[in-house]
Every structure is written in C-alpha cells, then in structure tokens.
C-alpha cells in the first residue's frame, strides 16, 4: 500500500472542498413585461435571471461533490424573496450589494471586489442575463481578478486544480482546459436547476445574507427603454386543415412571398 503511494504520487492527493462563488441577478420576469399605450410596463414580478439558475445549480453540485462552500453574490435589486430562492437551492450564504443604476462594468467592479476578498477556487455566472443580455459580466470579473475565463460552458469537469469545459461556440464546440482559480459562464444546457423542497425553503431563512452598498459612476448611461415592436397583421386562419392551407397559399402568393 505504502509502495503504491510512493510509485503513484497522485494517489495521495487530498481532495479539498472547493469554494465556489456564484453571481446571480434579480431581474423583472421578461415574459410578464407587457406594452400598454406605447410604453413598457416593467412593474412586474422579479425572478433569478434564467441562466443564473443554472450557474447556482452547478455551484451547489460542485459544493456537494467536493464538500466545499457555495457563496452567492448579487448586485442591483436585492429582493429578499428572490435571494431566499438561491439559498433554498443550496447556496450557503449571499452577499447582496444594492446599488442605483449601474452598467455591467460597474456590476463587475463590485463583484470583483468581493471575489478578491474571498479568493475562491471558482466563480460561476450564467452565460447572459435576460435583461441586459451583455454576456459581459464573467469576462469582466475575470479580467479584474486577473484569472482565465471560459465562457458558454455546456459541461464542466474538475480534476484537482484542473478544470475542463465543453464550450458551445455555435457552430463550433471546443473542449478547453485551464487551472483554477478561474471564471466560468454556463449555458442553459449544463443542468436542470433543482426545485427546492419545503424543508430547504424553511431552512434557507437561517442562512446569512450580508448586505452592502456600492456606488458606481457608469460609463454607459441608459437614456430610454422603448417597446421593441413590429406591427403585424395578425390574421387568424381557422377551420379544416385543407381549407386553411389553401387560404394561406393564396394569401402568400398575393403577398409575393411564395
């Protein structure tokens, strides 16, 4: 046995729990935003941005398999109910940084400050948010922190301090490798986010939420947000399939589309 260990030094490698930081954003549910009298009604329910849930799920899985910690960071809207959802999914604690309007560069600055003080092994984000959709946060945090970044990962595998990821760079898929610490952004295909049990939801109220404030002077200011609409005819064709198909073909020929 001892001989084995001497011959194969990698057998003596001690697996230490990995500390993962996961960024997530509280956003208005885009499927509920409606246009009323030429304006967008943004006063809708908030949620964890879609792919950030995949990042949380991945962070919790890594925490569970290595016996480490998963810490959430959110910037902007710090809605408590939404933060509790992240905690219910298995995040150990959340740093909630409230701020007035800021751009993605400001958000990255705030998160990088936290990341530097926590010095984790891995930082995860969703590939993009459903509000700003810049896909810029992960790369920016990596740049500020001075570590490599792997974006659009649809699977990741950890082996000691080496991370291997499958990057979805349509139409190319790349398998890449680098050493921790690193920043990774994940796509929606990487996993199916868990639905917390009632017990996990109850227990999440005991988990710590540290609140902070961040003042930023954004380089990009948001001047206006208007509905993005293209007026359509909205003609409904209903009835027997043979008849509606006939009508459609006639209409498309008249329009010069066929």
């Amino acid at each position, binding site marked *: 046995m001892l001989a084995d260990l001497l011959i194969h030094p990698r057998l003596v490698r001690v697996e230490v729990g990995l500390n993962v930081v996961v960024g997530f954003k509280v956003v208005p549910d885009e499927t509920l935003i409606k246009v009323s009298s030429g304006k967008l009604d943004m006063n809708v329910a908030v949620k964890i941005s879609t792919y950030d849930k995949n990042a949380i799920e991945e962070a919790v899985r890594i925490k569970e398999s290595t016996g480490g910690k998963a810490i959430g960071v959110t910037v902007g809207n710090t809605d408590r109910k939404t933060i509790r959802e992240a905690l219910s999914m298995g995040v150990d604690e959340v740093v909630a940084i409230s701020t007035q309007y800021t*751009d993605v560069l400001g958000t990255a600055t705030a998160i990088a400050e936290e990341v530097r003080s926590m010095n984790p092994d891995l930082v995860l984000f969703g590939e993009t948010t*459903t509000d700003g959709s810049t896909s810029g946060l992960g790369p920016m945090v990596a740049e500020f922190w001075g570590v490599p970044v792997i974006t659009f990962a649809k699977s990741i595998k950890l082996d000691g301090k080496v991370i291997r990821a499958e990057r979805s760079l349509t139409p*190319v898929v790349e398998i*890449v490798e680098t050493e921790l610490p690193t920043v990774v952004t994940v796509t929606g295909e990487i996993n199916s986010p868990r639905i917390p049990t009632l017990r996990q939801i109850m227990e999440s109220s005991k988990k710590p939420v540290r609140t902070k404030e961040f003042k930023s002077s954004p380089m990009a200011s948001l001047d206006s*947000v208007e*509905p993005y609409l293209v007026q359509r005819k909205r003609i409904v064709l209903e009835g027997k399939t043979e008849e509606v198909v006939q009508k*459609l073909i006639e209409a498309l020929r008249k329009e010069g589309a066929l």
Partner: protein
Amino acid sequence: MIVVFSEDGENFKSAAALAQSLGEEIAGVAKQELKFTNKLYVTDFDEDVVVDIVSKESPTLVIGGDTKRDKTVAARVAARLRAAYAPSVVDLKSQGDRFVVKRIGYSGVALATLTLSKPAVITVGKGDSSPKEMQTQVIRQEGKGRVRVVERREGKGTVDLGSAKIIVSVGRGMGSKENVKYAQELADAIGAALAGSRPVTAEMGWLPEDRQVGLSGTKVKPKLYLALGISGQPQHLAGMKDSGLVVAVNKDKNAPIAENCDYLVVADTVEFCQEMVKRLKG
C-alpha cells in the same frame, strides 16, 4: 484610433464598414488577410492574445464582431480599458465626445438607447454594408494564452440562416424529433432553410445547434418566416422580428406568437406540413 476585430471574416467586414464611416485611423485583428484597415494583425485568435493586441492600441472605439468568442474578447477589453460596453448594437451615432447607441434589451421586448463615454467598446452583427478596400500593413502575431484547446469539433455549418430568403422554423409543438422530417419536406418544397427554437436545438437536439434562431442563436430576416409549433417566447422573437412576413402554425390561438405574426394558422403542425407539401407539389 479605432480597432476592429472578429474571428469571422464576414463579421469583420461589417465592423470595418462601420469603422470606415467614422473617418479615423483603423487597426484590425482577424484570422485572415483582409484589406479594410490601415494595419491588420493576423492571428489564430487565442482570446488572451487578441485582448492584449486590441488593448495595446489605446483605442477610442473598439468595434468587435458578434460571435460568442468576439463578445467574450470585447467584454474583457472593456474591463481592461475601463471603457463603456455595449454589445450587439443596432445603431451607432458619434456625438461630440460620446457615442449614442441602440440595442435590444429585456430578451427582445425592448429597444434601449444608451450614451457611452469614450473610450467605448461595442460589437455589431453581420450587415449589408461592405467596406472599401485599402492599403493594409499586415503584422503576424501569434501566442498562447492560459486556456488550452484540447479538442475542436466543427459544426456542420451547412446553412447560412442569416442570408436565407425563406425559413421554416420548428419548435416543441412539432411534437417529436421524428416529426421534424415533415418540416424538412415542406422546407424542400418551398426552397427554405430549416431552423429551430432554442429548446429543439440546444436542449433536445432535434436539430443541430447552429440552426438556432433567437437571442442566443442566429438573428434572421428572411422574406418569409414560417414558425411551426413555436410558442413565441421573447428570446425567440428577438431573433426573427425583422422578418418580412411571419406565418405561425400553432394549435393554441393564445400563444404569444399570435401577437407577433401576420398569419396564424390554427392547426396541427404535422398535418399542416403534409397538406402544404401536397398542394404545392400537386
């Protein structure tokens, strides 16, 4: 100094055309020798290397392409230069010492106008305008970054959805992977390219990932867009809103796509395809 970069030749051209319209000295970073900038760095596009090249030029404006890799590089450059960042811009105006840009927000629901201080980093998609050829000083620059590529699988890349005139696009409502063949038959009958929504491409694999139309896939603007069994989530709409005529086929009259199409055919998607093919061939 303006810096233009893209891993994609066509996207490099549209970025260069925008840069030329601003009348400043232009540096480019590309994989191929393209003659649309005053000087050009030719590189195999390791992300660390491209971020270094672009940042060292101390640009007032960086115009990147819109591929996923381009956007990753652009965001890092913005962080390194502490510059304003706006990817996937659809309109840019120079206003004194600022830029005013428009881009899509809230997953396709909104059009946002932003003012960017200089320096600024933006990305643009492929467009119709082509740049003028010019005398270009070519510099080769290679190097290795911190992320190693172990394996590379090229996608099929057989269809260019961005320039297709007619697109037949399938969603979950098509029912099964098996049923996609009926949509293919219809596409063949009308000379269309076959595409799909995010769930059927990236998640369920009914079609290859490069066929994805939407915010995270390709943005298309065909003369005719036929949406089969696509409910019309904002993310999908964001990728096809600029289409000429939109026809949706759906069993559910109240699906969001109903608000965003010219013709809504309330029918079973498979029956619809079979009937269309029969009529068009007969």
